[in-house]
């Protein structure tokens, strides 16, 4: 019995040309982007940068040409993503739309919503947020209470979403809501809707995170009226859509690369003749190298049309362990021993505080391991 069979994926040769193009673009576009900002990794936000990426065809690059996509391979997309993350580029504006909202619209509303919105996503002009979590529904997503009720040609939504990243900057939300009362079968009766963030009755309030930053929001729906065509796919298909999205959400290189800027700072501060430094950093290099191949392998499985939900959960679990080890190891090697105004100290400070989120977002460590345990035949 092979519990998790993740095979190495080979990058086709054209990927390396593309990689060179991305690097060359980034060295220009980010020439003045400071390392402290790069430490934010994929949480960094710049609508202008997203538009520049869109101009180059690096958003929605695997999507059909009829929506403005480039029909490139998933592995080519993987190369662009990993180069963006390695450079700490500010990608959060378009990240969600590129990763999951765009593919969702193309798959479930190919003739109505996708033609209208996807070309704007591709141009880096249209940003999305995800309305899944609620005040009483975190890991237990099936317990959501936000409801949509049919009213003529519209649906009327009432309820509340929380921890909604970038809701205050997004143009649209994909909201998971109940369209039928909860029953014995907990995963039945949920649907997803496209919601324009300017719709009357929708209120976005900031929730300041422990970094002191405004990324999260609370979004309340007070008789928010959306047209029937904004129902994504079939009524009641929400859970199925969400679990597919979560595989995409968990499979990418952003799930192991969040602490990359600190890794770079540590390498520059370290002493190659110090055995403690070489031991700690050598282990980290090995883990990076392997997680990169794991993450790439999962993308290869997606590209081959497989459903790597177990593999994605495992890579996210292992990746978060690496991301979270780095700030503590930076503390171990350099804490209190570098000037407080040094880039290392600033990058470290940011990541130490950001760190707890890495094993919470996109499915907590415990939920991921629960998925794995179930797949292994436990439970």
């Amino acid at each position, binding site marked *: 019995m092979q519990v998790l069979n993740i095979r*190495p994926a080979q990058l086709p040769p054209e990927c390396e040309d593309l990689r060179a193009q991305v690097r060359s673009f980034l060295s220009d576009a980010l020439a003045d982007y400071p390392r402290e900002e790069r430490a934010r990794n994929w949480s960094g936000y710049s609508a202008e940068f997203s538009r520049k990426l869109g101009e180059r065809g690096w958003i929605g690059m695997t999507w059909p040409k009829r929506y403005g996509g480039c029909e490139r391979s998933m592995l080519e997309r993987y190369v662009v993503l990993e180069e963006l993350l390695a450079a700490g580029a500010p990608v959060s504006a378009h990240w969600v739309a590129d990763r999951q909202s765009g593919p969702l619209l193309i798959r479930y509303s190919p003739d109505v919503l996708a033609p209208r919105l996807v070309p704007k996503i591709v141009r880096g002009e249209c940003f999305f947020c995800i309305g899944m979590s609620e005040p009483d529904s975190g890991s237990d997503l099936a317990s959501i209470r936000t409801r949509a009720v049919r009213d003529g040609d519209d649906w009327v939504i009432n309820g509340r979403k929380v921890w909604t990243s970038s809701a205050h900057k997004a143009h649209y939300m994909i909201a998971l809501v109940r369209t039928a009362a909860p029953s014995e079968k907990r995963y039945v009766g949920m649907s997803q809707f496209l919601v324009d963030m300017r719709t009357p009755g929708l209120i976005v309030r900031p929730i300041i995170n422990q970094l002191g930053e405004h990324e999260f929001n609370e979004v309340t729906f007070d008789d928010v009226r959306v047209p029937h065509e904004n129902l994504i796919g079939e009524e009641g298909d929400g859970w199925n859509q969400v679990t597919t999205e979560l595989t995409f959400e968990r499979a990418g290189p952003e799930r192991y690369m969040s602490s990359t800027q600190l890794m770079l700072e540590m*390498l520059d501060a370290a002493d190659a003749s110090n055995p403690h430094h*070489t031991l700690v950093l050598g282990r980290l*290099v090995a883990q990076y*190298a392997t997680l990169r191949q794991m993450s790439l392998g999962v993308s290869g499985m997606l590209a081959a049309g497989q459903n790597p939900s177990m593999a994605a959960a495992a890579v996210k*679990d*292992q990746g978060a362990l690496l991301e979270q080890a780095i700030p503590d190891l930076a503390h171990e090697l350099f804490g209190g021993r570098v000037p407080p105004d040094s880039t290392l100290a600033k990058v470290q400070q940011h990541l130490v505080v950001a760190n707890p989120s890495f094993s919470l977002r996109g499915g907590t460590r415990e939920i991921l*391991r629960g998925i794995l*345990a179930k797949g292994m035949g436990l439970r």
Partner: protein
Amino acid sequence: MNDEKMIQESAARLFADAAQDLTLNERAEAGEFPAALWTQIEESGFQLSLVSSDQGFGLMPEQALPIFAELGRYRIPTPLAETAIGLALLDAAGQSLPVGPGTVIDARVGTELSLASSGATISGRAQNVPWARHARWAVAQLDNGDLAYVELADAKGVSITPGRDTAGMPSDTISFESAIVRAVLPAPAFAVREPLRSLGALVHSTMMTGAMQWVLEQAIQYANDRVQFGRPIGKNQALQQALAQAAGDVATARMASLIAGQDFSLTDAERECRVPFGVAVAKVCCGEAGTRVAAVGHQVLGAIGFTREHALHTATRRLWAWREAYGADAWWAQRLGETAIRAGSTAFWTAVAERQFRTA
């Protein structure tokens, strides 16, 4: 089915049959050489699997390595790994290949060997040499980078003191007093530095992935079978979480060893930088994962797993022995870390993406 798959499956069948004999490891630990099994292995030719020329099967390392994952999985007590490594080294240096079991002598603390100035004889002491007492020949790493090919069986000036490794397998001390050297394999015959340690680390990393996989399977099975408080202990969430992490560890270790195998060559100069990178990554990741998976396996199996009545120890003790063999994970990590620090931050991401630090 392709050739490599056939070879892997025939190895798995042979090892699975051999592992039916539950006293196999016990007898090997008591000092008995599994002669009949060794004959079967030699007749199948698995000792030639890492030989890349037409003296062997002509397989790429990545095609042959699955045999060693099976060897680890079935915990077969033979000198197959060392024999195959030694033959691959001899072949790469253009030597004709000896028959019978052999071994390799890694440069390590406790091993000091010196070649006579003529190159015709060797003197000194080698410690922790796997299966030396049963080996007919050995390939030894010398301080100057060359390798020495020596006779062991019935050879003058060779005396062997038996010892055992953590797994209870033969791990002997050899004293050489002007013992005859059949050939010196010069360092330039290999495209990589430290070919013996590198291939040894790669093969043992791969063996660890097989042993880890088996430990994980035993633990899952036991967790589902063992009932306490009226339900299988596998319902316990703490235990599920530990097993899930272990599954991730096994997958990680396997990926590291597969990639290292793809990038490995003893003789291809173009891979000069990829080989040490891949091997270091594999030995670090397999060592780390092996440590954790062995711990989880024992925690899940409880008291029975700590006894010789259960076979768990045949895998976990191997994991503890192999994580140290051919450079412990910490040794490889330090070397990788030193290279990475010298290369600096600007080289880091390129190295990860290219699977090498370009040192040229």
